[in-house]
């Protein structure tokens, strides 16, 4: 049964710098990296050493505790470096790419005759498994679980988000193949959420074996969290899997061709980026291929992902595994005099969801915004502001407080199984007290993962 749902609470953040719908083939990077830090909670066990030759699709490391889950090289080449951080934690495995990519050759799968176990094995063996994430906890899915349903969001509503219709244009077959194999993994539905009232690409509208639901409303309407909450909510003990739409197409393509071809489109966005277009890159590409000459370099922040949930990278850092977007925004590391641009200024151009700034009504259509915290961290004082942007039947502040005091019982009761850090991104944005709620929710999920799963 397809549903039509309406997200009433939320906020569309209108900032400058969206990407134009045209794409450029980015040059092949000289180096690529797979970052274990992209997969929360993963402790990698290296399978290759520095200097080893790998092909695209060769496993580089595996999950130490779930050994079947392999993480593979996106390109062929030589392992150049294993970058480590504090306590020798592996941060990046950098691969020096060949001029021509050679693939681990597999054979195309006959999707029709596949049963669940062979489907799982195929995904695990080919390194495609990490594209599948699970709720609760929001980490790479457990292959021993059978999810009650699988969710794919057909659009992204976050600030400056790439247009999924553009990303999937002419990739109908690949997307369908991805959907087909996902259908093998669950007894329930594969849910695909599309925007209500706006047409979507044929890849979505023509997709078979999916339950297509319509979603209307502001961000986070495009996040799977609120979609799951309204369509098939997670109760304790239940598991739902989620896959990004573009990743579904990647899975499909790899299964159809038998090769790990991880190329995808990413959007270059943000007010400081100049040549804002879509770039065709391979997962793990060096951001400098996209950024070179296409962005201001003076006092800016490069973000792999969007401004709400992305992670900061260096200009020559590597694009995150799940990200379809690079955002470049100005750093806000300057003092602002209180009566002009600071806290008591008139604020006609200051981005805010609070009526205490006239910009909410009188502001420009799109805002310039920097990374200034616009205040200092405080205890919770103002109430009711999280609730305005949090479309769950959950009390967000109380959930956060239960995490702060590490009360597992309360966390469960208040709905921690239904949320992921990204669902709190808007709460974090609007917070008067500047509390890092995504980080707190992540801590809570870690505790739940360790103690209750």
């Amino acid at each position, binding site marked *: 049964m397809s549903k039509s749902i309406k997200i009433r609470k939320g906020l569309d953040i209108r900032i400058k710098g969206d990407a134009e719908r045209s794409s450029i083939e980015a040059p092949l990077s000289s180096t690529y990296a797979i970052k274990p830090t992209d997969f929360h909670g993963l402790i990698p066990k290296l399978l290759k050493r520095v200097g080893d030759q790998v092909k695209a699709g060769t496993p580089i490391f595996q999950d130490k505790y779930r050994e079947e889950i392999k993480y593979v090289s996106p390109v062929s080449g030589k392992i150049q470096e294993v970058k480590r951080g504090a306590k020798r934690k592996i941060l990046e495995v950098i691969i020096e790419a060949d001029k021509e990519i050679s693939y681990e050759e597999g054979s195309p799968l006959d999707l029709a005759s596949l049963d669940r176990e062979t489907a799982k094995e195929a995904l695990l063996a080919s390194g495609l498994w990490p594209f599948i994430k699970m709720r609760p906890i929001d980490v790479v899915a457990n292959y021993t679980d059978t999810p009650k349903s699988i969710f794919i969001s057909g659009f992204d509503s976050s600030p400056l988000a790439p247009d999924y219709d553009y990303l999937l244009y002419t990739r109908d077959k690949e997307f369908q193949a991805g959907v087909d194999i996902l259908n093998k993994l669950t007894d329930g539905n594969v849910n695909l959420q599309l925007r209500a009232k706006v047409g979507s690409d044929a890849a979505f509208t023509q997709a078979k074996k999916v339950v297509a639901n319509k979603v209307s409303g502001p961000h986070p309407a495009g996040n799977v969290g609120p979609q799951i909450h309204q369509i098939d909510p997670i*109760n*304790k003990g239940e598991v739902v899997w989620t896959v990004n739409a573009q990743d579904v197409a990647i899975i499909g393509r790899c299964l159809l061709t038998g090769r790990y071809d991880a190329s995808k489109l990413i959007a270059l966005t943000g007010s400081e980026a100049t040549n804002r277009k879509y770039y065709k890159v391979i997962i793990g590409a060096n951001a400098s291929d996209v950024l070179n000459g296409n962005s201001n370099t003076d006092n800016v922040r490069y*973000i792999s992902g969007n*401004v*709400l949930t*992305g*992670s*900061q990278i260096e200009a020559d850092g590597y694009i995150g595994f799940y990200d379809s977007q690079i955002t470049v*925004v100005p*750093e*806000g*590391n*300057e*003092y*602002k*005099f*209180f009566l002009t*641009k*600071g*806290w*008591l200024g008139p604020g006609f151009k*200051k*981005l*805010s*969801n*609070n009526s*205490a*700034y006239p*910009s909410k009504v009188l502001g420009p259509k799109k805002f310039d915004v*920097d*990374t*200034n*915290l*616009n*205040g*200092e961290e*405080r*205890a*919770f*004082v*103002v*109430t*009711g502001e999280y609730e305005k942007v949090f479309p769950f039947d*959950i*009390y967000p*502040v*109380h959930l956060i407080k239960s995490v702060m005091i590490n009360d597992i019982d309360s966390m469960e*009761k*208040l709905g921690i199984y239904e949320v992921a850090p990204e669902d709190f*991104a808007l709460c*974090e*944005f*609007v*917070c*008067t*007290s*500047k509390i*890092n709620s*995504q*980080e707190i929710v992540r801590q809570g999920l870690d505790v739940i993962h360790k103690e209750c799963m």
Partner: protein
Amino acid sequence: MKFLRKIFDNAHAKLNKSEKTKKLFPLVDSVDTLMFTPNHTTKGGAHIRDGIDLKRTMMFVIIALIPCLLFGMYNVGYQHFLASAVPETLAWTNVDMFLHGLVRVLPFIVVSYAVGLGVEFIFAIKNGHAVQEGFLVSGMLIPLIMPIDTPLWMVAVAVVFGVVIGKEVFGGTGMNVLNVALTARAFLFFAHPTSMSGNNVWISGFKEMKDKGLLKQTVNEAGQSVDAISGATPLGDLASFAQETPAFSDLAAFESKGHSFSELLMGLYPGSIGESSVYAIGLGAIFLLATGIANWRIIASFFVGGLAMAFVFNQIAGPEDYYFQLPALNQLMLGGFIFGMVFMATDPVTAAQTSSGKYIYGFLGGFLAILIRVVNPAYPEGVMLAILIANVFAPLIDHMVISINIKRRLKRVKIA
């Protein structure tokens, strides 16, 4: 602004030189962050943040209090002039009245802020955190809810009590259970009742004038010369209906002597400094609601709660129960009801935090305020105690609301 920035940067550099002066960091930092939004950038999480911060929120409440403050100053002078035996030739102009009020009220504000921020600084230095903004509002509220003749030392003691016992022992701004300003007032109310109630404290210099025989005189029915002004607040007069010597013979007499509905809205009657004018409070309320700082749910339900209780009294009033008979709307315009509704009950820290809880909390506060005011002869005004009681109940109300939410989500499992 570069020179100002330089001064702060130099001050920070000097403080950082030795361990001893480092402790004073919160002092300089507080002034610095007041003058400049700091250069802190986001670390992880959302990379961009809303422009709002606690300073702006608090400052907007202070801005909303300005009409009350100005009207309060004028009213202090006005009441003083009305009560004193000044010859017609020396009649005061409106400016005189305002200036008198200004001179009398300003010391309250200075003492309140000086003492309160002093305490805050001590805690900030002791705990090594920045001075929190909560007291900016409390420091303005406390003078406005004092009778004008309260000795300044009492104000100081009340502020210390309010800040330390009301807030800091719980962990500072955001952690307190009771409204800080009301805690300060309640402390004085019970510790020094004669300075906080009765007929002698509401008009600037009333007691002194009375002792020296400087009050305006009038001739009563028996032909004796008596004070023209009793010095009582309208609520005091109303409470006297229950006593042997009521100030007025019946309700009609009360209303005709300067207590008609429109006169109550205007607020030119004795009372705590900032509480009397509904017009002035209304301006602040409009500002707070338009900017979304105050919660309309609390204000609305508080009003309805008071109205409901007053209406109940109207219905059960006997022929002689003049106080019970007072029309419900007039009842709400009196005393500190509207002031408490707009500025005290809406304190987000001590109010209920859930949306549905706010309705219950507000209703409870308004309902109790009128109940205590009308029925309890010891307390002519009930708003202060009613809001404090509602504060105490707020966590319980939230707990109930959240329990319902939890049960609703647990039910899903059974359906599925």
